[in-house]
């Protein structure tokens, strides 16, 4: 049974991959993303973290354009932009992925329980997610971040707990249809507990949707991190792309036309967000049963 199931899953995975490879946008996204992940992981080899601290860069020229301090110039305190950019990728990706994990776990638990149990559980959880949906995200995140204090952990938490409702609703809808399927009923008739049915039948069936949704939540989380850092709500002395933008803005880089300071982090944010979106869309098209039906292949 297990071996059979594994074999089936392996085949399904291979098929998914084959389908995915045909999606050119998805592949581009995956390549870009792979590049950024590699940079984040290899940061200690690619850049020197000692250069992130202003006390170690007193030998550098300040406001040096890329020509004078290759490859990307320096900021107002003489810190090289390149090293900040490389280390900034770690924070951006970490926050993006960690916050998404929180959001997906909450969203899945809420969505599955709401859809599966129905009744008052559904009503309560639905109101809760509606409540989170109608509150404008940015002000809520700002208030939370301000109360909890600026730190990386809090930023992850804030973004995580504010971005789950969309996932919850999508999953709830999917669970409602799965619940009606014959094999679920059969399993119940054979005396399976709710937990068993949820774990064995419902979860595996919503898993693809969860994965696709997660990939689309990551860019939102990364952008949110950038916005919150830009507003000065993240750990003030930890380099992220958002904090680089904030530093550049408050040090007057726009007025000085120090484009080498604010352009690279801005472009990186756009690139990563775009890459995640492309991957997410490609996955969604393959894994979401509702989208699949309409596809030719």
């Amino acid at each position, binding site marked *: 049974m297990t071996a059979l199931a594994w074999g089936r899953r392996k085949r399904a995975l291979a098929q998914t991959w084959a389908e995915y490879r045909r999606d050119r946008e998805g592949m581009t996204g995956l390549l870009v993303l792979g590049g950024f992940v590699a940079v984040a992981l290899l940061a200690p080899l690619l850049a020197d973290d000692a250069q992130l*601290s*202003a*006390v*170690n860069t*007193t030998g550098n020229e*300040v*406001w040096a354009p890329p020509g004078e301090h290759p490859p990307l110039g320096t900021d*107002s*305190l*003489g810190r090289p932009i390149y090293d900040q950019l490389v280390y900034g990728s770690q924070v951006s990706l970490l926050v993006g992925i960690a916050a998404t994990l929180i959001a997906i776990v909450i969203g899945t638990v809420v969505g599955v329980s709401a859809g599966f149990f129905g009744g008052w559980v559904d009503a309560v959880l639905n109101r809760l997610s509606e409540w989170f*949906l109608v509150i*404008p*995200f*940015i002000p809520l995140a700002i208030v939370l971040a301000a109360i909890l*204090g*600026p*730190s990386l952990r809090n930023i992850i938490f804030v973004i995580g707990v504010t*971005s789950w409702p*969309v996932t919850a609703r999508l999953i709830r809808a999917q669970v409602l249809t799965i619940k009606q399927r014959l094999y679920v009923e059969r399993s119940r008739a054979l005396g399976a507990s709710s937990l068993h049915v949820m774990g064995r039948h419902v979860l595996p069936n919503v898993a693809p949707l969860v994965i696709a949704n997660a990939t*689309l*939540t990551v*860019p*939102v989380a990364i*952008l*949110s991190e*950038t*916005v919150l850092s*830009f*507003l*000065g709500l993240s*750990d*003030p*002395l930890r380099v992220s792309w958002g904090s680089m933008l904030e*530093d550049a*803005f*408050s*040090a*007057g*880089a*726009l*007025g*000085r*036309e120090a484009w080498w300071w604010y352009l690279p982090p*801005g472009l990186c944010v*756009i690139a990563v*967000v*775009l890459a995640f*979106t492309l991957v997410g*869309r490609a996955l*969604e*098209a393959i894994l979401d049963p*509702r*989208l699949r039906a*309409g*596809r030719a292949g």
Partner: protein
Amino acid sequence: MRSIVPAAAALAAVLALALAAGATAQSPDQKVVLTVGLTQDLDSPNVTVGELVSSFELWNLQYPTLTDLAADDLSTAPGLAESWSSDDSGRVWTYTLREGLEWSDGTPITAEEVAYTINRSREEEWLNHYSTVQNLTAEATDERTLVVTSSVDDPKLPGLSVYIVPKHVYEEIEASEIGKYAALDGVSAGPFSLKEWKKGQFWRMEANDSYWRGRVAIDEVVFRVFRNADAMVAALRSGELDAAHNVPAAAFPSLETAEGIEAVEGEQGGFDYLVLNSYAGQPPRDETKFDAPHPVLLDLRVRQAIAHAIDKETLVERVLSGLGTPGTTISPSPSPAWMPELSEEETYEFDLEQANQILDDAGYTDTNGNGVREHEGKDIVLRYAIRTESEYSKPYAEFITGWLKDIGIDTTFSSYDDGQLIEVAGKGAFDAYVWGWTPFVDPDPMLSYMKCDQISVDASDFSNFWNDTGLCDPEYDALYAEQNTELDPDRREEIVHEMLTRWYTNAAYVVLATSPDLQAYRTDRFSGWVRQPAEIGPVLFSNSSPSYWSLEPLASSGDGDGGLSTAAIAAIAIAGAGALALVGWVVLRRRSVEERE
């Protein structure tokens, strides 16, 4: 996925809005409006509680003083009083007020009004009055004659430049309520009166017709608060502002060379300092309502090690772009004569090795090898506060916390605007932050701020204090009392030198740099800008701000050049990028929806 749109749009909008903020606000029907940009909002228009430089500027424009400060050398000059004389003892001074003085609402200003402020502020120990009036009693002998008696020899007399408030407004307010008074009454006897204050945005003042120097040539002055100093500079360049205060050092060189703009390095003794919370239980306060400092800061050796770990030359060069001088002791007055020369052994030279040695000798060692020293088995982590209203605060923090790390002290951060930070400091809920002082002419007020009785002990009002170190040094207090009544200027200077050296040795304040007020004004709108003190001082936000009543509008005062500044173009570019991302997102979503259908 709704959040992508708000997030991207918000980022773009924040940037664009902050930069292009308020491109409207042009004067209707030929009103002469002076628009001044600054980055610090008022903390309170109430003269009994406000502490920020911005609030002092409001009072300079709204409240008269008995004696004024001369524009050129800050010496005592006639104000409400046109003349004065003393008896033989030198303790009793008789002031004669000008004729026909009036508040802006028509109420006459008599000697009785002035006496009211002096006596009440002494009895209730008003924050901004007390150090000047603590020994004074005032009595009005007739409409225009005021007799001020000092209980001690007072070197500050006959100078008496405390803000006089309207008696007919303030006698309605009880002592217990006065701290909560909003002070938006707008009753003025200065050149302008406050008409409107939108917190975080602007305050607006209109000319006072009954100002004793005569109505000024400006109808209205608007102070616009900018969240971003760079946006303020852009607004000055484009002609939206006539003058700007606290220009960022990074932008200063470009303003010096800009056409139609005069950049001013205003020296009036202002300095930046690192404060270390050193409250050690004196004077006693309700500990349950206050926060305690990190225990290691109560150890003088730790504070000294921190003082040794700060390279002031680098700070001036890197953070202040070279505009300033490395600090030593606090500077209590615009005149440098009050500052002592420190001997070599008294000075905390920048020396990380020595700093580490001091901490090693004091027994704070790093036993678990994580690079952070421990105190009672726990890593030493200081709470460092960052001021969001100063663009130097974060760069200072970068360096200072970097050096602290080098001597094995870790830090955590929180950010506050100035109003919040006053409360946080009053509560003692911090270990360190960087802020600045701008002293008055006489060293007395600045010196009085460091006394024991200026430590925050009032749990009902955390902003009611001056001494943000929490350090109580009775010896210092004794010296303060001595100089306060010393009439011999040389002897007084000696005592002040001793006080400042003591305070320096205590290392609760590490003065980082004396820094000029960087200001800039447009030369095409008004003439008659006055630097106070002459040649070296700032044109605005000085001790008595004489520019406002000296300014004359220039005939050809156009509305800026109409061109777009670089920053505006950058803002538009960023907003454009945001919009593009938005369009891209919509297209992507639409395609995805089509696929669904």
